[in-house]
Structure formats: structure tokens, C-alpha cells
């Protein structure tokens, strides 16, 4: 039972008068009979057990985001159709190409009872930009030139130039732009704020045991009328995904953040459970190093891209839980998503062999290790990939297993030939295409460079009209696939599984979680 660390909020201390459910019993979350927990949601985060900070500006890990979303709001949020809609802002408008204006909702209260104003918005964004604060989310606001507080409830955000991703970067997603209270942060300091966060969200922190669980209690002054309906949320951190499923089946939790792909088909048969799923905001691809043989040759890259069957991969690796990718942008970014199979990303053994014949490596090639990690489906991707390519082209691709951390470090330093990779949760097309494939993109560790794609990425960042913007990214992806810049494999489904009695959870494709606690009721 790790860490009874004193954060100023003693664990299991009840702050609000109406929040008695958590402390009323000495039994831990899993030992309470389900009937007595009517006012408690037990929402397990599966597959992760580390939360280092709950400061939105500093957060970076998925479980941190899951909890931050419950305790904070951002200016805007995504609705069920992935459209950006007001949240702490009552409305927003584009004043000119470089200026977004937000009218703030009046009377919004932080957990400490103070009122949220335009000054807090300004503080939040300027804090992210501060070099000394060193936020991993700094990039989200790097184009912001100025935050103007016109009056306490009107804020203008001015960018250096037209910057289309900004609105998505101001949502309550993995952005770090959730609004924090200036007074509290300045009073207790950044590190302490990460341990005793104060937000505007439907739930506030009441307990936290390192690597084990987080406990939240309802924020009575939450600005959405009638929410939240449950007094307490217990969030156990369950290291293994499969243990999350076991805990759900055993009645120890009500909701889990994810499930192993292989379990999904059987879970769908279980009448006592509900499962929601959709293709997530991710793309799993084989990254190739353009600076080293053999992937320095475009013909070889194309040959490999056509030498494996993405549909088969979805079946074998994901048990059907996903869609094959013919570009990097996932289906949920509908305006920019292109479902059409592109020529170079379709399995075609004859053409693959013809491309190989044109390449520098037609006459043979030694072993080519493809990096992966773990023992799970990440490893399976590379196994299936290497097997198929070797069968089609007669190459000697091998599977090299490292740790994820090491694989990423090796990609960054260029010490690899091929490697599996995939981003989860980016919400703007620029994060999938511009940042990964443009010459100066900070996620482009591969040495890929094409001036035409760079120009399109630049256009995409500046285009505010969604339809036009989407068309730009489709063109950029045409180029990327033609060059076989990376080899997209598939977009995998995200899953939430819950007891049948859990109502009001709307799943969003970036794998939201905590932001839904407010609307959950238990029938």
C-alpha cells in the first residue's frame, strides 16, 4: 500500500459535507458489496500504474490524463462527433486569422471555491510557455504570441500566424491546456500543485496512493447543472490489462479503461457487461530509417510496403479489432481521413517483386532487424510484418525485442533500420502528418524529407477551413505513401468495458475516460 505521503490532502479525508461515501466505511474499494456502492463509481485504469503528477501542464502519461480530465476543464472540448464545442468558454469566435476570442462562462468555481476568470486562462497558457516550467505540453501553445484579457470574462488568444491546430489544442484532451487557478498555483508552487491539484472539474482529489489508486469526490459547485451524480470515484491503477477484465468480471470494479484485444470477442458475449469500441485516434506503423540501408532506397521501401497484407495483420494481431491504414490519419478525424486504399499500401506481391528488382538491394541483402518491445501485440505486429515480407520478397527481416523506452531512444538517435511505432491520442492532423513527416517535424526521427510534403504541412497548419484543410492532408498522405515514408499498418480500436448498470459513458476516439465521470449514473 504505497505512500501515505502527505500532500496536504490526507488520504480518505472528506472535504465536502455531502461526500461521505468514501470515508464512511473502513473497507477498501474492492471489498465493498456492490449494493452499498451506489454512490461510488469504481473506474479502473488498466495497463498502467504510474501517475507522477496531476498538474495538467506537466502531465504526459495516459493514466495522468485520464484523471486530469475528471478534475479539470479546458476552454473547449470535443463532443461525441469530435466537433470542438464550448466548455469553460460559453462561446468562441475567430476574430481574424490570428485571433480566437473566448467568452467565458460566468460563475465557474474552482475546487477551492474561488471563481475562474480570464486571468486564470492567461496564467495557464503563459505558464505552459515558460521555459523554466519545462512543460512536456509546451508545443501545444508555442505559436501563441499573446493572451489578452479583454475583461474578466473575455479572453483573446493571438498567434504569430494563422494556426489551425490551436482550437484542438485547447480542448480537454491530451493537451495540457486545462485551466488552472493562478492564485493556488502561485501560493503552493508547481511541484505541490501536481500532488494537490485544484481545478474546475466535476471531481476533486481526496486520496492518492502511489502506484495503487486515486480517489475523487464530487465538486458540489460544478458548473453543469445536475452533475456529477455520484459522490465518489475510486480509480484503482491496475498494472495488467487482463487483470482489469478479471476485476470487472469479479465485481471489484464497474468500468475499465481498456481490455486486451484477444479478450474482446468473449467479453462481447457476456450479458452482464457492456462494451463500447471504435477505431481510436492512433496509427501503428513501421518506421524506417531513410539514412541507412536498405530503407534509403525508395524502390525498396515501396516493395516492402506492398509485400504485406494489412487486412491479415488486423485479423491476426488485433483479432479484427481495428481497420487497416493507408495513411497516418485515423478515421475519427473524418474531415482529413482518407479511407481509400492507396496503390503502394495494398498487398501486391507481383508489383512488390518488380519494385524490389528496381532497387539497389535486388541482388540480396543481409539480415534487417526490425525493433519492437514486450511480449504483446506490439511484438506480434513485427512478427507478422517480417514473416509476410520475407515470404513475399525473400528478405531476411528479423524481430528484435527491446523495451519500449529503449526503442524510442534508438529511434531518436537514428540507431535503427526499421521499428514499429505508433502515437495514441493526438487530436489534430498536423500531429499525425506534419510533426511526423515534414523535414523539421519534431517526431520525424526517420530522415524523411520531401519539400512538397513540407509545403502542404505548412499550408495545413494555416488553413482554418476544415474541408479545405482535410483536402490538404489527403494530398500530403498521397505523397507520403508514394514515397513509403513510413509504412502504416492499422488503426486499432479502443475499448471501454463496464458493468451493465453503468449509464452515461460516451466514448471518444482519443480514448477519453475521466471526463465522462460527471455524466455517469448507476442504474
Amino acid at each position, binding site marked *: *500500500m*504505497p*505512500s*501515505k*505521503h502527505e500532500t496536504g490532502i490526507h488520504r480518505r479525508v472528506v472535504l465536502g459535507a455531502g461526500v461521505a461515501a468514501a470515508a464512511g466505511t*473502513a*473497507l*477498501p*474499494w*474492492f*471489498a465493498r458489496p456492490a449494493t452499498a456502492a451506489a454512490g461510488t463509481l469504481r473506474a479502473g485504469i488498466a495497463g498502467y*500504474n*504510474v501517475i*507522477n*503528477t496531476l498538474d495538467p501542464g506537466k502531465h*504526459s*502519461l495516459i493514466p495522468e490524463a485520464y484523471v486530469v480530465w475528471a478534475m479539470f476543464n479546458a476552454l473547449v472540448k470535443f463532443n461525441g462527433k469530435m466537433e470542438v464545442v464550448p466548455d469553460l468558454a460559453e462561446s468562441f469566435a475567430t476574430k481574424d486569422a490570428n485571433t480566437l476570442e473566448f467568452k467565458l462562462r460566468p460563475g465557474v468555481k474552482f475546487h477551492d471555491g474561488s471563481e475562474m476568470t480570464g486571468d486564470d486562462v492567461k496564467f495557464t497558457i503563459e505558464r505552459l510557455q515558460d*521555459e*523554466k516550467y*519545462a*512543460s*512536456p*505540453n*509546451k*508545443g501545444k501553445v508555442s505559436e501563441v504570441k499573446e493572451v489578452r484579457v479583454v475583461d474578466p470574462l473575455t479572453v483573446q488568444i493571438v498567434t504569430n500566424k494563422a494556426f489551425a491546430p490551436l482550437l484542438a489544442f485547447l480542448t480537454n484532451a*491530451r493537451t495540457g491546456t486545462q485551466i488552472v487557478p493562478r492564485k493556488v498555483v502561485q501560493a503552493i508552487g508547481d*511541484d505541490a500543485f*501536481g*500532488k494537490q491539484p485544484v481545478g474546475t472539474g466535476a471531481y476533486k482529489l481526496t486520496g492518492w*496512493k*502511489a*502506484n*495503487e489508486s486515486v480517489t475523487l469526490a464530487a465538486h458540489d459547485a460544478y458548473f453543469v447543472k445536475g452533475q456529477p451524480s455520484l459522490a465518489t470515484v475510486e480509480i*484503482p491503477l*491496475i*498494472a*495488467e490489462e487482463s*487483470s482489469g477484465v*478479471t*476485476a470487472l*468480471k*469479479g*465485481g*471489484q*470494479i464497474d468500468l475499465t479503461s481498456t481490455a486486451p484485444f484477444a479478450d474482446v470477442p468473449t467479453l462481447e458475449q457476456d450479458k452482464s457487461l457492456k462494451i463500447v469500441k471504435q477505431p481510436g485516434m492512433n496509427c501503428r506503423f513501421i518506421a524506417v530509417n531513410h539514412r541507412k540501408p536498405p530503407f534509403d532506397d525508395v524502390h525498396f521501401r515501396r516493395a516492402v510496403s506492398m509485400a504485406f497484407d494489412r487486412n491479415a495483420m488486423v485479423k491476426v494481431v488485433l483479432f479484427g479489432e481495428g481497420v487497416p491504414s493507408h495513411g497516418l490519419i485515423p478515421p475519427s478525424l473524418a474531415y482529413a481521413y482518407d479511407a481509400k486504399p492507396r496503390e503502394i499500401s495494398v498487398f501486391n506481391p507481383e508489383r512488390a517483386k518488380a519494385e524490389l528488382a528496381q532497387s539497389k538491394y535486388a541482388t540480396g541483402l543481409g539480415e534487417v532487424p526490425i525493433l519492437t518491445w514486450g511480449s504483446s501485440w506490439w511484438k506480434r505486429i513485427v512478427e507478422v510484418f517480417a514473416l509476410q515480407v520475407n515470404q513475399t520478397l525473400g528478405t531476411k527481416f528479423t524481430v528484435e525485442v*527491446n*523495451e519500449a*523506452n*529503449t526503442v*524510442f*531512444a*534508438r529511434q531518436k538517435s537514428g540507431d535503427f533500420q526499421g521499428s514499429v511505432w505508433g*502515437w495514441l491520442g493526438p487530436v489534430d492532423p498536423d500531429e499525425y502528418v506534419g510533426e511526423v513527416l515534414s523535414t523539421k517535424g*519534431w517526431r520525424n526521427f526517420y530522415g524523411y524529407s520531401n519539400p512538397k510534403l513540407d509545403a502542404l504541412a505548412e499550408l495545413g497548419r494555416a488553413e482554418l477551413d476544415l474541408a479545405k484543410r482535410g483536402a490538404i492532408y489527403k494530398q500530403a498522405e498521397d505523397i507520403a505513401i508514394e514515397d513509403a515514408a513510413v509504412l502504416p499498418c492499422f488503426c486499432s480500436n479502443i475499448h471501454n468495458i463496464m458493468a451493465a448498470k453503468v449509464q452515461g459513458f460516451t466514448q471518444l476516439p482519443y480514448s477519453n475516460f475521466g471526463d465522462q465521470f460527471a455524466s455517469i449514473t448507476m442504474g
Partner: protein
Amino acid sequence: MFPKAALYVGGRLIGAAITVLVGAIAVYVVMKAAPGDPALAVLGENARPEAVAAFRLKHHLDQPFWSQLAIWLGGLARGDFGLSLTIAGGIPISELIAARLPVTVFVGLYAVAIAVLISLAMGTVAALRRGRALDTIATSVAVLGISMPDFWLSYMLVFAFALGWRLFPAYGFTSPVDSVAQAIYSGFLPALAIAAPMAAVFARMLRTSLLETASREYVVAARSFGFSPGFVFRHYVFRNALIPYLTIIGLQIRYLLGGVVVIERIFGIQGMGSLMVDAAFARDYPTVLACTVVFLGIVLLVNVVVDLVCVALDPRRST
């Protein structure tokens, strides 16, 4: 006699302290030699280079290898394990260990208790009924216990006792610090899963040891005096046969500290093993080092205790 014993214990303790120090430095060197970066573990892949650089500066990761080690050893000398880097950012490691050590010790003792109970019964019965049906059954069960993977047994126990009959929670463990009764209840399945292979090893050990002792000359001599079989067994055979048995139990302590991570994971037990494995994967150097020191300390302490108990059982060993 007393100064001799004191010298013996004192010498063992000094040796233990040196072993801990050398062991910790060895682990530190190996950890640092492995690729990977704590900044990536804590900041995630989305972190920009500036944030990574700031993190390194703050935690002295930009300093040379030996000066980092010196900083850590300096803290250790003051009894300060430092702060966790990446798995419980900013929380004192001593707090993490203080929370987890009781859990590990409790589950370990729980499992040993179950294993000892089972093995005493099984081993004794098998030895007394050597070659008969009961012996065959006990020996076969022991072979089964040794060959069953512990994670598989864990899942079987969960399916039967938690998901099937709903007698125990399928997941989750209460620390004995919070409630001993709850700890005994929620810890039963994992303790049983850990105990099963141990019980098998212990039982086989005890059976062999009993049979071997029973054929010793002094036992034959005791019988020839006309002592009752029960008296001979209790005073001549059993007591002497316990020495190798206890040594084997002592050896299992290492396994209980670090080897039960899979079971900890399956049942959601926040033990020392999981702490160390998580810390190693996330490159939380100070936490791994602290765990190493605690592990080595406990293993050495247990060895000393087992030796002392053996000396008590067999005074000839003290010389």
C-alpha cells in the same frame, strides 16, 4: 560460549553490510549501462527536447556517472533513499518502501505458513508410509505442485474461487497495515498460489530428509534401546531432519521478495517485487537501488537467522 556467539553474529553482520554495499554498486553500474532514459519514462514520448533537458538537470542526470553515485551514497549514509524519479515522481522512496515492505513480508509469511503446514503433513505422511499408496499420492501431488506455473495456478484459483464461487475478490489486496482481517481474506488466493510450489519442494525435502535420518546409525541404536517408534521419530528423526528443511525455507525467502511479481500483478498486490520491476523498467535509478539495499539486507538477515536456528537445533554447528 557467549563471546564466541557474539563474535560469530558480529562477523556475519559486518560481512552482510559489505555485501549490501558491493551489491548496490554493482546493480547501479548495470542499470546505468543499460540503454533507456528516465526522462522519457516520466515525460512520455510527446516530450520535447527542452523538457527532457530540464528534467535531467533537475535530477542530476546530466552529471558524470560517479558523481551521481556519490550523491546517492551520501544520501544513503544519512539514511536517505532520496525521491522517486519516474514511478511515483517526487515521493520519498522510504515512504514507498515503508508502505510496501509490510505487504511483501505479510504475503511472504502467509505463503510460508501455508507451505509449511501442507509440507509438514505431506512430507511426514509420505516418509512414514514410504512406498505405499499415500506416499505415491503425496509425491505425485508434489511433482504437480512443482510443475504448475504459478501464474497459471493463480488464474485457476481466480476462476474457481473468485469468478466461480465468489468466495474471494478476483483482484485487489488490503495492506495488513490497514486491516489484518482484510489482508488475510484478500491475500488468501495469492498466498496459496505462491505456497503451492513451495509446499511441494518443502514436502519432498522433508520426506527425503526424514528417510535419510531414519536410517542413521544413532536412530538404529535408539530403536535397539527399545524406545517406542513415536519417541524415536519425534526426538531422533524429526528434529534432525528439520535442519535441511529449514535451510530450504530460508533459501525461498529470496523468491518471496522478488520472484512473485507475476502473482502480485494478477492480484493487485503492491509488493516490493513489483516496485523494483516497475522502477527498473522506468529507469527509476534511486528506487531500484533502494530496493536492492533492502532486498540484500533482508536476504542476509534471513540467512543469519536460519543459521542461528540451525545452531540451536544442532549445537555442533556453532564451532
